């Protein structure tokens, strides 16, 4: 593939002086880099650094305010997205945007028919099915894309981009939310693609992917290039550790410590109450079964959460974690079993009534209200409380996530993926809940932000909030939780304190998989 018959071997992609301004905000500021033919470039940076904006500029979804983009020697800066795609630039969306009413296979056929209107139908279908097989979607080819859960939609993003037969592929956080064994599969796939395509640009927070797939790495911060070079050198640099990697990886002390528990006390409904020996548990699930149509997802889950506890639910994708979160929020009605809150049976209670009992959700995929501004998203969750109370809560969540204050008038979904995640958490806090269910909150966050987030969660727990954390990031979850449950095939397969579970070899086998 890399045998380029074209004029000499200039870079495949060459970007200079690229800028994108939104009003006064410079999302991308005078960025310049080039991608040699056959290269794989990784791009990392804090949330909101402008990484997804860069993908949008390269793919043509966004129009550059200044600068030029040259692809294969031709200036494509002014070309619309469709023309760039036809030239061979494929991209994925960080938050998947499949064609919901089309079948999964049709999602791929669309690209093929657009490019080759006269291709034989059988050939197009065979090509699509081969890509679906490769991306692990062969079993759902005939289902409407709407039926796919978030992580499979992410796979569809990749599959759909591949159906274009791109020469240059731009991947925007395709590794987010995968457990280690799946990350291993993804790395194998990307490495294979690297040999087939003429160029790859990978935006990723999963550092294993960056380390194992990208020879070159560029760090972006505030829309500018902060560092560039060989991956291992860039990752080792102290500057990068300070803005991106944080304590867990480099041992550097980060300046942005989480607020003290005292300031967060106001965000939690009931402070640590004097323990009453026979008090009913805040949440209790007994023999819970649930599913979608004929698919049984939960098969008899028993779970008890006491006020003030931090409980983590771990498990592979498809183990039933998000369904469990859905049942607890009242969105999914269990087919059997009991859901008890404060000792009262609430099975089948509507979601808004469960919310009034002091339960809040931070749902997988963020679910920010797109037409509303950041502040409106927050106020909506506050419900009917007095003006001063509302303002007080706003101030408190803004203190937790200062960037939200800066962006308060902006559209909720116009922010970067990581900022939207912060908004989702802040929104859950606005109802002054007793318990929050966090479903995959670390998905798509820079390591440094994850550190801050988990510091915030620890502070919230100290302030008396009960936390139920559904998480892929085992290490962080174990560090925070008092009690850990590991789910497998819709059941809780292993329970214990964080220390017990950490030592248990079953966990390694169940969850970490065989990869390192």
């Amino acid at each position, binding site marked *: 593939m890399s045998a380029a018959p074209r004029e000499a071997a200039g870079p495949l992609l060459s970007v200079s002086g690229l800028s994108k301004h939104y009003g006064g905000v410079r999302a991308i500021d005078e960025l310049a880099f080039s991608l040699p033919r056959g290269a794989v470039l990784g791009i990392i940076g804090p949330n909101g650094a402008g990484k997804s904006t860069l993908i949008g500029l390269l793919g043509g979804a966004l129009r550059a305010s200044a600068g030029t983009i040259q692809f294969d020697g031709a200036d494509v800066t002014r070309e619309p997205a*469709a023309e760039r795609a036809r030239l061979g630039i494929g991209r994925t969306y960080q938050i998947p945007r499949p064609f919901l009413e089309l079948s999964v296979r049709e999602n791929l056929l*669309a690209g093929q028919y657009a490019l080759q209107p006269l291709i034989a139908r059988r050939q197009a279908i065979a090509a699509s099915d081969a890509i679906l097989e490769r991306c692990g979607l062969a079993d759902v080819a005939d289902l409407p894309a709407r039926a796919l859960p978030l992580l499979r939609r992410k796979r569809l993003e990749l599959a759909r981009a591949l159906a274009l037969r791109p020469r240059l592929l731009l991947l925007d956080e395709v590794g987010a939310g995968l457990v280690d064994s799946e990350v291993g599969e993804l790395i194998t796939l990307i490495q294979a693609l690297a040999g087939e395509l003429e160029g790859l640009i990978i935006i990723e927070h999963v550092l294993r992917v960056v380390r194992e797939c990208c020879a070159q790495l560029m760090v972006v911060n505030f829309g500018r290039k902060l560092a560039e070079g060989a991956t291992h050198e860039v990752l080792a640099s102290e500057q990068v550790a300070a803005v991106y990697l944080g304590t867990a990886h480099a041992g550097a002390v980060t300046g942005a410590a989480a607020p003290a528990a005292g300031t967060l006390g106001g965000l939690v409904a009931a402070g640590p109450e004097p323990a009453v020996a026979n008090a009913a548990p805040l949440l209790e699930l007994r023999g819970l079964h649930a599913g979608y149509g004929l698919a049984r997802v939960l098969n008899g889950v028993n779970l008890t959460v006491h006020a003030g506890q931090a409980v983590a639910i771990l498990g592979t994708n498809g183990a039933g974690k998000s369904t469990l979160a859905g049942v607890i929020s009242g969105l999914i009605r269990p087919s059997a079993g009991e859901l008890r809150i404060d000792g009262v049976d609430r099975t089948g209670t509507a979601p808004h009534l469960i919310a009034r009992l002091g339960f809040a959700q931070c749902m997988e995929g963020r679910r920010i209200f797109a037409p509303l501004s950041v502040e409106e998203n927050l106020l909506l969750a506050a419900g009917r409380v007095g003006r001063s109370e509302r303002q007080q809560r706003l101030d408190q969540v803004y203190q937790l996530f200062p960037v939200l204050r800066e962006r308060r008038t902006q559209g909720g979904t116009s922010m970067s993926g990581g900022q939207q995640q912060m908004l989702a958490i802040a929104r859950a806090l606005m109802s002054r809940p007793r318990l929050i269910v966090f479903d995959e909150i670390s998905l798509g966050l820079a390591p440094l932000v994850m550190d801050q987030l988990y510091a915030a969660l620890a502070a919230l727990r100290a302030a008396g909030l009960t936390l139920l954390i559904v998480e892929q990031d085992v290490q962080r979850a174990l560090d925070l939780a008092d009690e850990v449950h590991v789910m497998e095939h819709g059941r809780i397969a292993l329970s214990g304190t964080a220390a017990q579970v950490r030592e248990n070899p079953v966990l390694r086998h169940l969850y970490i998989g065989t990869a390192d």
Partner: protein
Amino acid sequence: MGPASISAAASAPPRAPPGFALSLALLIAFAALALLSGWAGDYVLELGFRLLVLMTLAEAWNLLAGYGGLVSLGTASFVGLGAYALVGAMNRGVPLALAWAAAGIAAALLALLVSRAVFRLRGLYFTVGTLALAEALRLFMVNYQPFGGAIGLFLSPDAPSLRGLFLLALGLFAVATLLMQLATDSRYSILLRAVRDDEDAAAQIGVRPFRIKLLAFVVASLLMGLAGALQGLKLGAVEPYGMFGLQWTVNVLAIVVIGGQGQRLAALIGALFVVSLGEVLAAYPALHLAITGVILILVIRFAPQGLAGWVVLLWRRLHHGSQR
């Protein structure tokens, strides 16, 4: 991912009922009706003509709104233009066949002309834009004397007999059925629905949204123009309030929404239902409107896939009883 694919066969959705076959069956039934001249009195032909014209318009609108996501409130513009073009051309001595074709082409050209402007708008804005176009055109026709102003135009040559008109409408519906078959069960339909679901994402995989939408818009407008021309021919006189009136837009919208947007059978089922309802309640026009409104609300609330959605469901139950 090998073992996971075992469930593929079981989870594959059953095929939808053959809309094309049903349309054909209906066409043949209508043709037989026309041939049984003794039995088919004027009332039946009259009703059949109205049904065929409305079904054609509904097919066209369903292509736009149901498959393309282009919810247009501009139906009346194309119907009206078609009617005026036919009457104008025939009055100048153009033979019927040519005048009819010219009417369709005029409507298609209007679509081409306004496409740049209306496609700049998306979603609700597109809808409002087409409504503005329709109203502007109606006001223009009311005030522009060379086209007869508020009085309109009278058709000088003799119109065909009712039976002739019915056969023309039958032919038109046959063309509409064929075009819809090409547009909805083809690779073009995949592109059109992809643009409907997410225009930006479609562009990112190389689909040119403007061209895809334009083709649907032009084809739908052509059909609307041809249908409007037939209506003008039948009336023998066209005036702006009737031919460019909002009731065309609203009727067609009601038919497709009740029938089921984006469902292949929407036009058939919706038109049969709405026209039958109109006949049953012919003596109570006010009640008719109110009941149609209530049914629209009920369908939107309880059957977003429309009556056709129910039929499809029923069909699947019958043919795949084992599914559940």
